[in-house]
Structures are given as C-alpha cells and as structure tokens.
C-alpha cells in the first residue's frame, strides 16, 4: 500500500491501530472516522481510500458518509477552530452582527480558513447553551453573551 505523504508514520500507526480495533464491520465506520479525524485533523480522499482498502468497506460508501455529516472535513483546519452558534436563541440575540463583523474583518466567508492558517470559521448548530446566547466556541471552549466588542478581545487570545 502506498505511503500517505501528508501524515507522519506515527499518525499512521495510530490510525492502523484504530482500524484493527474497529474491524471490518461497516456499522463501526462512523466512530472509526471520528477517531481517525481526531488524530489526523481531516479526512482527505487519500485516507478514505486507505481505510477502504484495509476495512473492505467501499470507498464510495466512506466518501458518502464523510460528505454527509458536518463533523467531518476533507480539508485541514486552521490552528484555531472558531464556531459561531447560529441557533435560534443566538439569532434572536443578534448573532448576525457577529457573522457580519467576522466576514468583514477577516475578508472571509464562513466555512473557510484565513490565509495565515490562524482561524477556521464555521457556523455551528445550536450547542445548547442558549442561556448564554449569543455563543461562540473557540477550539471547543464556550464563550457566552458575545458582543461585537468582546469578539476582538477573545480572538486576540488565540495566535
């Protein structure tokens, strides 16, 4: 099997271990992909092919699953993942102003990464912390009661 140049040997060893533990049962596919992405950060077609050959699950099916669920990404994310919650409570409390500010300040549309590889901006579906709306997550950490003013301050903490 061809070596995947984008990942280190160590990463691939971890992935191999996961595949071995998961076996060839197709019902274990989604957890396997979740854990693999946890190690590699993203799931490009090359790794999908790799998993397919090892598990005998068709590459077509793996691609179908990866592109269906929003958790998976085929592109590497930037150093920091910024997720702005666009649930209803956040919408009512003015999350649209935050979207506008980010798009303007970083000259970017949501779903993309800044060119310097610092931030990936994503829209999140309700994280269930509606009491703190509007809510933003940076690398999984929840920031509540966001304002246009507090946005800069928080983002500045992440280099």
């Amino acid at each position, binding site marked *: 099997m061809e070596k995947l140049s984008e990942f280190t040997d160590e990463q691939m060893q971890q992935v191999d271990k996961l595949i071995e533990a998961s076996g060839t049962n197709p019902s274990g596919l989604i957890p396997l992909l979740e854990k693999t992405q946890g190690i590699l950060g993203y799931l490009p077609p090359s790794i999908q092919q790799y998993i397919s050959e090892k598990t005998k699950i068709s590459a077509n099916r793996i691609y179908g699953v990866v592109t*269906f669920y929003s958790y998976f990404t085929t592109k590497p994310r930037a150093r920091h993942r910024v997720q702005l919650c666009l649930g209803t409570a956040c919408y*009512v409390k003015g999350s649209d102003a935050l979207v506008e500010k980010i798009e303007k300040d970083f000259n970017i549309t949501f779903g993309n990464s800044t060119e310097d590889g610092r931030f990936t901006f994503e829209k999140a579906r309700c994280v269930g912390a509606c009491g703190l*709306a509007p809510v933003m997550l940076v690398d999984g950490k929840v920031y509540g009661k966001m304002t246009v003013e507090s946005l800069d301050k928080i983002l500045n903490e992440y280099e």
Partner: protein
Amino acid sequence: MKTVEDINKMRQDMVSKTDDKTVIYVHLGTCGIASGAMPVLNALKKKIKEEKRSDIELVTTGCAGICSMEPLITVKTAGYEPVIYKLMDEEKALEVFESHIKNGVAIEDYALARGMEYQLKERALNKGPVSGEKKMEGNIPGIEEIPFFSLQEVRVMHNRGLMDPGKIKDYIGRDGYQAVIKALTEMSSEDIINEVLTSGLRGRGGAGFPIGLKWKFAHAESGDVKYMLCNADEGDPGAYMDRNVMESDPHSLIEGMIIGAKAINATQGYIYCRAEYPLAIENLNKAIKQARALNLLGENILGTGFSFDMSVYEGAGAFVCGEETALMRSLEGKRGNPRPKPPFPVKAGLWEKPTVLNNVETLANISQIILKGATWFREKGTVKSPGTKIFSITGDIDNVGCVEVPIGTPVEVIVNQIGSVSKGKNLKAVQLGGPSGGCIPKQHLDVAVDYETLQEYGAIMGSGGMIVMSDDKTGVEIAKFFMEFCKDEACGKCLPGREGTKQMLFLLNKISDGTGSEDDIRKLEALCDVVKKTALCALCKTAVNPVLSTLRYFRDEYMNSVHTNELERA
C-alpha cells in the same frame, strides 16, 4: 454479583446518612461551566483546604435550571436553610465563604433565593424553611416566592441541583433504580406496558405518540433480537432540555431504557447522542459504567434473569438524524437518509429488527410512572396529555432556563411569569418547535401548551424549545432564518425536500431583500403546500410550518415588504 438486596442496602445507607453538615453545592452544567463555574469550584476547594475545614462537603451537581444566573452555588450551613447564590465568580464565592459559612451571615446582594428546589412543596406549606432548618436572616426571597421556581412542577428534573450525576450512590439514595427493581422482580412485560398505557404518557420528542402503544407493538413482534434506542440527537436549535437531563441525571435515562427493554424484550440498547454535547456523553458513559459495575446492566441483571446492555453512539452532525429511520441508518454506519414508512421501526428498525426509539425526556419519565403509578402520573397535565413537559425558554427574556410545567399550562404563564420578558423589549411572538414549528403571536398567549391546542394555532409542541421573540425581527426574517436552516440540513434524498427548501428560501430572500412581489408570496404558499404533501419524511414536510405560521400572523409584514419594494421600483 450484586443483588436487589445490595442495592436496597446502599439506598438505606444513603437515606440514614442524615448528618446535618455544611454543604456547598456548585452547579456544573454546560451553561455553568461556560459562565465560569470551574474557577469558582477551584477557589472554594482551595479555600476549604487552606482553612482545614474537612467538615465542609463540596458537592458538584448538574444544572440548577436558571441558566441566565449562572454560575450558581448553593450554601447550606448546619441547622440552617440553604441559600442559592447567583452570578458567582471567584471573589464573590470567597466573600460568601467568609460571610455565610464562617460568620453565618448571608450576602443579600448575591443571593437568589432561600431554600432549594426539592424543598419547594414543604416550604410553600410552611411559608418558610422546612422542619429542622432555621431561617437565614436578610432580605432574600424564599424559593417558594419566586415564580420561576414556584410555578414549575419538577418531576423529570426532581434531582436537579441536588445530586452529583457522577455518583450512582447519590442516585440510588434518591430512590434511583427502585423502579428497575420493581419492574424486573414484580412485573411482567405486559404489566409494564399496561402501566405506561394507562398513564397516557406521550412521546416528548414532539410527535406525541402514546408510548405504551409503541411498546405494545414492539412487544408483539416475534424474534429474538430487538433493540431499545434513545433519541438524544436534540437538533432543534434553541432546545436543550435533553442535554440538561443527560448531564444532570443520566441514570434516570438509563433506568427508563432498562424498563423499556424489559417491556419489549430487547437485550441491547443505544443512546444516539449528538456530538455537540460532550459533557452529556461523558456523564452518560460514566453512568453506564457505574450501572454495569453494580450489575444493573449486563447479563442477568441483579440476578433477576433479565439481561440488557447499552452504549452511547456519538452522532456526527446531521439534523436529519433526529428522524427515526435516518437515525437508525446512521447507527448502521451509513448516511443518515430517511426511508419511507411503513415498515415502521417497531417491525423493521435497526438492522431490520423490531426497534423502539424513544426520546430522552420520555424515558426519564418512565421510572416514576412505574414507581408511583399511572394514577399519580395523571394528577398533572390534561386528560389527553397527562404529565409534565420541560421547555427550554430562551430569547428576549430575563430568566432563561429549563422549566418543567404541567402540560396545559398557558404560554403566557411560561413566558411572562416564569420567563419574564426583558425590559425594553416588546414581545412579538413565541416560537415553538423550532424549524418544524410555528409562532404563537402575543394576542394568543393564553393558549394552553398541549399537543392538540398548539396545532390549532399553527404551532407544535415540538421537543420543547420555546423562543421568545421581540419585535426586533420581522415575520419574514424569522421564516428566512428557519428556512435557511432546513435548506442546509435537508438530506437530499427526496426532491421536494432538496429543491423545495431551496426555492422557498430563494423566494423568502427575494421578498425580504427588495425584489419580491405579491406573486412571490402566492408562489411561496403554493410551494409550501407541495412540500408539505410530498416530502419523504417529517423534517421537510414540517419545514414549511415557520413560513405558514408567519404568513398567518404577520402577513402584513410580508405585504409591506413587497409593497415597499414595488413602490421603490415605481
């Protein structure tokens, strides 16, 4: 191997442990942690250590219910009633430690209430502390005097703010797993089904299907392999009741699953939980492990001969997976595409085996129905819809949080008395049921929340998200917001869902951005009708509801928008 006697002994030990000591409760739900509860907890831990106060018990619990006042702590000193403190930070918490714990003086400015939620009924009777507790001085309202708490009827959430979700002993001490013991030792599958049927419990995920009936159908199916599933894919934006239950009282869900499994003869269960809820997943996994260690899950549960085990399955982010057939495909490791019904899952569900799927809140109701009986359950709620429902009330109100009220409570009570509309905001409408639901405008706020009545008004009970909207947003904007969501989340399997949501959004954009006409409103209505009748699953069938509902109540805003545009163009 643990037996029924072992569990009962554990319970006895917990119940008889009534030593009256000083306790600090720190409430650690997702909201609390995000608001800074961890530094508060750590500061208190450090302080207790510094002062060598080993007599003080520090208890971490789940959410205390009123999210907008987080971080919350509750302080109880020996012999006195507890006091709940709101909006804590490290400094304030240490001030409370100095003043309340060391000098016995509560700090009025930081206090939210005297008393804890579980004491509500007795406190209301006594008009003060429960027996054995002395009143704390100071101008602090009793919890029974605060509408946010006093108007609630906490059944599903009866352990909230009181119990460490990471300790199965605490749960057992609160009568936990007594219902499982009863169901496994004294009741047959038919007995369980009958009790649940008589209780009239309906699905809390939104559709309101009678649970006993679903169980009866699955029970009647032959076959050795059946599955008991829990839908914890709480995808409606603005709804987080289920997260709250899973984080704060995970065992109540596990208990409901075991009893359901016995009713239908399932041996394996899964909780399908969305990945956006990491704390819920962590707490559930911990709880399952503890239950297994006490032989409450696994082979031959408590020596009763019944075997059942379960695990948590983490979703990968797709709104459509809240639909039952899509959820089962996802569990099988496939794309979460729904499929036509029949066959219904009770006949051919997960891996084509008979399967019951119930929502979190539904299952969390089960243990109390078994323990206290159907008659007790029917004491609250309406004849057609007995029991309580948890709503997460959010939006332009002061008291954002999870509230549990009897079904049939007027929307007005929930929004104005429990929630309290924020100062300077004019209430426009209350949105129920998220992207599948509709609005109740302010002139109809006296409407009772029950499955049938809400439908008459074009809204739905839904899973329990209740969003209070002020007149900052127009009806067109609200409809657009939800349609954008549905368009993004439509799975693409059926044409009406895939293309219909796209075209409806296109028309809504046109109407709101200044290029629409009256004809576009007519087209939008026609399209709603088509999608409603032809989409494959409930998600896109109901995706038209926010549009229809805003057209029904705020048609003038749609008309204004297109007329202004037509005038400008002329």
